């Protein structure tokens, strides 16, 4: 008992440090350069921080779970085209329903429909790709090309929509960190909490899944059902993060792999919080540096894309794709 506690101490201490760093980031972000107008600054920034927390959480958790399901450290929902599919769904709904109908619809209802479609897609992807025993390389390439296809299709549809109308709705679709829509934020929070409850009950099974499909089945895990549920959770979380800030291809890859490297534990109780904390630190810290050092002269998403891409290639060069 004491021996295992000693071994556990390591990841937990690291988690504690990460947590402290994240809290520090939040603290600095909330208070720096406030100029005394607390009653305006605090609520305004709190909403920003809430968005960042939500997005960081959604990206980190969805990526770690997806990697567990696919038994692989390189595949992520974003690389498999989930993010761009969400964009395509939004554009498609706009195209087929027409801008007038859509503008009259409740954001929350629309969001629910889109998430439902995403879950459906993940089920199809699961049946079609992951159960066919296809090679990881084929999956990866398929995902990347699906991403290109979805992106080209959405820009194709966007060209068919009258430019003015599209601009009008685009603002509503993509709240940025700087201007989160309160309604959307609320729905996203509810969705995330719901998905997390489902995920929480599967946490132990996730640890077992890490041992590989056959071992997991041998140990009594209903593999198919568990994986389908986890993929549904992933679909919800990807929708949340994409709806809030748009697609970020490599961020999940970055935090998930850093988390695995940092906590040196295979238990999801350790890896998941570490990934979430790293995501929050990365997003808030990065935003801080951009706002204060570069005075908004750069785009955080672009920097993440650059670093994440480098990490991806490094991973491949190290032979991470088995």
């Amino acid at each position, binding site marked *: 008992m004491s021996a295992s506690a000693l071994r556990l101490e390591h990841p937990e201490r690291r988690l504690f440090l990460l947590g402290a760093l994240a809290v520090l980031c939040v603290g600095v972000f909330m208070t720096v350069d406030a100029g005394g107008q607390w009653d305006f600054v605090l609520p305004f920034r709190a909403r920003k921080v809430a968005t960042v927390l939500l997005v960081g959480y959604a990206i980190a958790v969805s990526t770690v779970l997806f990697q567990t399901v696919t038994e692989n450290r390189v595949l992520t929902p974003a690389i498999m085209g989930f993010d761009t599919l969400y964009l395509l769904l939004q554009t498609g709904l706009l195209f087929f329903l027409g801008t007038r109908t859509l503008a009259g619809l409740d954001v929350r209802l629309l969001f629910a429909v889109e998430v439902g479609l995403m879950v459906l897609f993940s089920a199809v992807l699961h049946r079609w790709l992951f159960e066919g025993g296809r090679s990881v390389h084929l999956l990866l390439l398929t995902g990347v090309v699906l991403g290109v296809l979805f992106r080209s299709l959405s820009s194709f549809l966007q060209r*068919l929509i009258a430019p003015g109308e599209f601009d009008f709705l685009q603002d509503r679709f993509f709240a940025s960190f700087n201007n989160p829509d309160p309604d959307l934020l609320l729905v996203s929070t509810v969705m995330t909490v719901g998905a997390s409850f489902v995920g929480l009950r599967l946490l132990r099974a996730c640890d077992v899944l890490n041992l590989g499909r056959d071992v997991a089945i041998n140990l009594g895990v209903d593999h198919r059902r568990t994986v389908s549920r986890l993929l549904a959770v992933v679909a919800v979380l990807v929708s949340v993060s994409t709806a809030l800030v748009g697609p970020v291809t490599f961020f999940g890859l970055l935090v998930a792999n850093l988390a695995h490297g940092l906590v040196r534990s295979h238990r999801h109780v350790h890896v998941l919080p570490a990934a979430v904390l790293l995501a929050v630190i990365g997003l808030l810290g990065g935003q801080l540096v951009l706002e204060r050092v570069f005075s908004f002269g750069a785009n955080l998403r672009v920097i993440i894309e*650059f670093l994440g891409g480098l990490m991806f*290639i490094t991973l491949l060069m190290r032979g991470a794709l088995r």
Partner: protein
Amino acid sequence: MPTRSPDSPLLPEPAFATRAPEVSLSLPLLLLGFAGLVVLGLAGASLLIGVSQVSWEALLAPTEHQRAVQVLVISRVPRTLALVLAGMSLAVAGLIMQMLARNRFVEPFTAGTAESASLGLLVVTLLAPGLPILARTAVAAGFSMAGTALFLLILKRIPMRSALIVPVVGLVLGAIFDAATTFFAYRFSLLQSLMAWTTGDFSSVLRGRYELLWGAFVLTAVAYVVADRFTVAGMGEAFTTNLGLSHPRIVALGLAIVAMVTAVVVATVGMIPFIGLVVPNVVSVIVGDNARRSIPWVAVMGAGFVLLCDIVGRVVRQPYEIPVGTVAGVVGSLVFLHLLFRRDDRVG
């Protein structure tokens, strides 16, 4: 072992090329002629599409004659020529890359070549905005050559190289170049210009704005002249050296051609994804992998593919246009996925 000097102009004809029976040669030739006619038909159709009415009757009618000829000479003919030239040279560039990398899934768009070319264009725009277009293209070509060399270098370092991992590396490398380009474009408020460069779009092609593409055509012709070297290089480094040829030299030559073609196309009309991938793969099914024989096919079908994508983009939402890059992205990725899964079934 008898050796030839590496730069001997006379290349040994690959054995399988000379052994091919004469009878089967004439049928592909007929087919090629037929494909050429179809592409000519597409080019003719492309001339007649647009906001301003240019029909054959209008060309002959005395009253409208002058206006119709003007539209034709200043806008339509250059556009169609540009489409044909860009399609031909990009498809052939894709074929060369596939032979050099010995991988069916490589082309300027899936190897970071196109993205590094646009990074080069951005750098020129920032550092030396006054340079003439030719010098700008030369810089872009240098960048795309460096980018492609980096791609090949990374490939060498990746363990357990599967055929499928190669394009993934290229696409991600492209994304990295793209991120760097976007970063600087954002800082210097050039995002809109960047969009214009990176989406393959022929709507702004006019007389005087596309002529550089003839340079790409010349490079394609050079590729045809030295086609046998690429065929040999496609059989591997050991095989090439065995024939007394310098493998690094052939690779350098091929890279130079590909990089220059890509840079010229990106500088004049923007990126057109997947042409270099889809066309050579389809052609390889029909005529095999001898570059000398397949280059004419690849060129003709490349031109046809781009013409078709452009016609679709122009007809779907008249009088507006959908850029050819977007149409090619949709069509190309669908064909690519089909190729992928067909291949998987055969292996499995």
